[in-house]
């Protein structure tokens, strides 16, 4: 039990750190890697919460699709020079100082305001075997994801191979 709690806390903290890094890093490519890491951690958390279907979705969306789109998008931009990168590095904290403040305020507001979201929803059916989910339930998505990766590859070839 305690191990589980400790693990959850570790995962939660890494998730927040990875997300923060994603937002605040100066180089876009690193940011994408940060996003991928974030989504992998999120996937693990979802597995641990007994929701493998959601986990598979998360994995395929973030680690697969969006990364492919972002990488092809980033390659359209110009690489920062080192000085620019250092500049960005400096201003990243000043840029985001509002963020924790907003977070705290939102938390307080949520806690104080009488917002009740207690509608009765049925528990989602659980499917434990990941292989089963990926191969038997979501194989159409698999085809789609393969095609998206292909499209990303063609995009890089068509737009950047000179």
């Amino acid at each position, binding site marked *: 039990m305690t191990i589980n709690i400790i693990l959850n806390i570790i995962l939660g903290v890494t998730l927040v750190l990875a997300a923060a890094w994603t937002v605040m890093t100066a180089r876009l490519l690193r940011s994408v890697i940060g996003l991928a890491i974030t989504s992998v951690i999120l996937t693990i958390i979802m597995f641990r919460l007994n929701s493998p279907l*959601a986990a598979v979705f998360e994995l395929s969306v973030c680690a697969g699709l969006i990364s492919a*789109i972002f990488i*092809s998008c980033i390659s359209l931009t110009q690489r920062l020079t080192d000085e620019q990168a250092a500049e960005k590095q400096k201003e990243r904290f000043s840029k985001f100082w509002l963020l924790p403040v907003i977070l705290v305020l939102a938390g307080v507001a949520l806690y104080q305001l009488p917002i009740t979201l207690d*509608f009765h929803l049925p528990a*989602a059916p659980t499917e434990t075997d990941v292989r089963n989910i990926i191969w038997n339930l979501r194989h159409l998505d698999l*085809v*789609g994801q393969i*095609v998206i990766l292909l499209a990303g590859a063609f*995009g890089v070839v068509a*737009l950047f191979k000179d």
Partner: protein
Amino acid sequence: MLSPLLLLPLLAILILNLPFRSLMQKLAVWVGVGLSLWQIVAVVLLAMGHKSADPWGKFFTLGLSCDNLTLVLLTSIGIVVLTTILVGWQTIGGDKQRFGFMNLVFVAMIGMNGTVMLTDLFSLYIFIEVTAVASFILIAFQRDTNALEGAFKYIILSATATVMMLLSISIILLVVGDTSFAAAGSAVRQFQGNPLVILAVGIFMCGLLIKGGVVPFHGWLPAAYSAAPAAASVLLAGIATKTSGIYALIRLTTSVFANNESLNNILLLAGAISILVGAFAAIGQSDFKKMLAYSSISQVGYIILALGCGTNLAIIGAIFHLFNHSIFKSLLFVNSAAVETQSGTTDMNKLGGLGTKMPVTNATSMIAFLSTAGVPPLAGFWSKLIIVVALWQNGLHAYATIAVLASVLTLAYLLLMQRKVFFGKLADGLANVKEAGWGITSAATILAAITVSVGILFPWMFNSVLIPISSFLK
């Protein structure tokens, strides 16, 4: 019979990208023509009832389904992809470039075929994304500032749409634990008053409206259509955005979102605003392709308007207009491609008097614009008539009036276009312009023939083809 529609293009991509590059680069166009023709044949076979024989069914059970709405869309996809390939053949120089273009068209084709055949919200999202990624790259294909800007705008707004659709899917997953249309539909009906479910419905719809380019979600559309290379704008305007936005909206409103009144009111309002804003903006454009892009927004407005009306007749009208629009708008973009490649510009102020130099383009563009404006007996007239009649029958007289009046505006701006580009005195520097190559003219002729024959055959088609479309509405 269904899974090959998805897997054959995929197989084609894989085989074409094997070694023997130079051979494959020559083959690619023929493969594309073959695939699109095969798709049309397959639709005919499917329509005649050959549903059982699925040779690949043993290996791939992809959970695809097919009803009459799907068949209509598959036909349009086949036709528009064929014309795109013909135009691309002619307009995109260099074997390598053309090869890349064809590959992307195949990817878009897979995306669109998948979108119309699947039955699951999450898969829908994935295949919409497939089409979108192919579209991004196609828009940016020319790599100049305009193209990159257009692509960038589309990526940004498309990402907004993606976020909204994913959020909506996650809410539905939370509620029922499944994302198939049937499950989602029952969930929406069951938890009708639940704010979370309403939120899910609302933002999914908005995501699709962004994809479809409906006012006020249309910001990306003019830049994207006009910046894309000629052949790609045929694909985008003709079918890509219609499939990923409008088809999905039709499918979801009829089978997932409960048929509720405020949803319909929103659609009606969005449709009417799109019609008017698109038409007025089109009048003020001096760029040929930009004008067509705004015209596209206006025509999509008709479809949304009919969808908002919600009766069976209105939905038939919406689907028929979707088909017609994919034909005549592709035709107009094919004509703009002809003008662009031959004269080197799409600025209508610099064009003029091309009618005598480019007779085929002139004649087909005339047909397309008359059909768009809803002049009988062309196809566009009938679909608009059905929409107006349905609106009127349902008591929505104000919207019916807007629909009728806006077709005057349509006539006005397209007449302006026709006049500036094709009629009048030959503009300076265009003395040596010739008719476009056979790829473009044959594509234009095919599309014009379809518009005219659908229009003329309509009285016979109405009972035997159009009415049965509504069978998918239970």
